[in-house]
């Protein structure tokens, strides 16, 4: 038995549900297929939902509707060694009122909400269904099959929004069969229960304010970084490491996470907290250069499936790009229905739309950021340099002080080497 729809979306993550929502609102009969028992059950991330301008267009009062945790009013960066840390922080009242700049969220709640909004608009959500293959007819995609089930779901167009490994894009011949470990990172995260009052007091927060902090130097020399984000009554902490660098180090992600949690200045922040959940997931960090074919006959690729993730080193932006690309894919499918043409001739409009949008402009603009993130000294030597310089500046021990420019020169020479420092600066400049 086969069921016919006007469009099929594979994966009810932010990309897929945004696409389904936009198509359903335009009156299309859409199937949204998800392998979890509900959307979001399989999904984890660090925890920062950056401002969702594309969803605000649909729900202008997004922040009153969506199941959000705290809004981010305060952001920090900490350079860390095994026994020292140096912290910088930014806070502004401008991020403390609507439209907020970002929020912490839980994926099992947020993804489920967005998918349910698509259902309210008329989409058919099919849970517990892992798409196994695409149906190809005369070189065009005309539907999908579900693992362990008979029958097919048919539609003139399929949107692959099935996340970073996108087997749907692979089966349709749009992504390369092999990923490079250089372009992928893995994140592991631990969630800690902590009372709301404790979080407010410890991180200096009032009302629904939230704090987001990134860490450099906390990954045992492996390329990557750490994070801490406050939810209402839990704290998300974790590390993101590049897979090739992790492989070469021989270290394990959970041992690195454990060492981070035990760093004395960090451990203080979590004391009294109780471990609640552990999770892990891969991130497409290669940026612009790893984007697969975005369209084919009867198929479009959106979100992580299309590697639309922006890891600039300052922010990790994924959900906002996923959602926006899903909506642009939806617009293209709506247009294809108007023209009754689902060939790549019409569907290539998706790529044109993306190219004109902030999504591609950002990815292009930060095309070299992954190169900077491959400077291994960032993860060890530079945090050490910063921390030891600050220690020299603050220390009072009855010896004459070194002038600050002299101190910088001496420390850079000792810890990095002048030539390396100049070359790293150049790489960083070009990247940002």
């Amino acid at each position, binding site marked *: 038995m086969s069921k016919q729809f006007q469009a099929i979306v594979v994966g009810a993550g932010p990309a897929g549900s945004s696409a389904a929502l936009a198509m359903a609102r335009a009156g299309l009969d859409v199937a949204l297929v998800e392998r979890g028992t509900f959307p979001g059950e399989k999904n984890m991330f660090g925890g920062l939902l950056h401002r969702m301008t594309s969803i605000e267009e649909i729900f202008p009062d997004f922040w009153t509707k969506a199941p959000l945790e705290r809004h981010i009013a305060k952001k920090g960066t900490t350079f860390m060694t095994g026994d020292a840390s140096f912290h910088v922080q930014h806070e502004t009242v401008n991020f403390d009122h609507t439209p907020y700049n970002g929020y912490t969220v839980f994926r099992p709640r947020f993804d489920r909400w967005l998918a349910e909004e698509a259902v309210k608009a008329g989409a058919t959500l099919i849970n517990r269904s892992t798409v196994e293959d695409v149906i190809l007819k005369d070189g065009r995609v005309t539907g999908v099959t579900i693992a362990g089930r008979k029958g097919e779901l048919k539609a003139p167009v399929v949107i692959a929004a099935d996340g970073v490994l996108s087997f749907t894009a692979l089966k349709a011949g749009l992504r390369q069969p092999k990923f490079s470990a250089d372009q992928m990172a893995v994140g592991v995260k631990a969630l800690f229960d902590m009372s709301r009052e404790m979080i407010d007091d410890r991180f200096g927060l009032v009302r629904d304010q939230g704090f987001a902090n990134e860490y450099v130097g906390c990954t045992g020399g492996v390329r990557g970084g750490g994070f801490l984000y406050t939810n209402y009554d839990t704290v998300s902490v974790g590390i993101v490491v590049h897979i090739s660098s992790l492989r070469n180090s*021989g270290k394990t*992600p959970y041992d690195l996470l454990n060492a981070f949690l035990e760093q004395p200045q960090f451990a203080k922040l979590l004391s009294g907290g109780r471990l609640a959940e552990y999770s892990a997931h*891969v991130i497409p960090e290669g940026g612009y250069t790893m984007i697969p074919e975005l369209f084919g006959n009867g198929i479009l690729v959106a979100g992580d499936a299309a590697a639309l993730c922006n890891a600039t080193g300052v922010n990790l932006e994924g959900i906002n790009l996923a959602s926006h690309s899903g909506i642009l894919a939806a617009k293209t499918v709506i247009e294809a229905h108007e023209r009754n043409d689902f060939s790549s001739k019409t569907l290539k409009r998706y790529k044109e739309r993306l190219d004109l949008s902030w999504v591609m402009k950002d990815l292009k603009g930060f095309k070299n950021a992954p190169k900077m993130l491959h400077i291994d000294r960032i993860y060890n030597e530079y945090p050490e340099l910063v921390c030891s310089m600050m220690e020299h500046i603050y220390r009072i021990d009855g010896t004459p002080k070194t002038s600050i420019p002299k101190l910088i020169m001496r420390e850079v020479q000792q810890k990095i080497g002048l030539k390396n420092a100049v070359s790293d600066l150049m790489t960083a400049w070009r990247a940002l």
Partner: protein
Amino acid sequence: MNIDEIFDFTSFTIDREPHIVLKPEVCSGCDVRGCVNCCPARCYTWSEAEQKMTFVHDGCLECGTCYVVCQRNAFSRWQYPRGGFGVAYRMT
């Protein structure tokens, strides 16, 4: 923290059928074995004595790391669990 405890804080609905299956001869001939140290759920164990790889799918977080790190195509199957099975996050 006792790191061994961390793995008990994730929920699963375990399928009898493994969703990942290895070709043992490929792993025996592999000199990298990035899967062993990179897997966040300790699913891969290499026995030096037996020269043999053991894979247990039960605690798999479906993160995708082994799929990316293995450069030898050691999988006779690598797919997500059937609908409704596998890892079930409550919050994250």
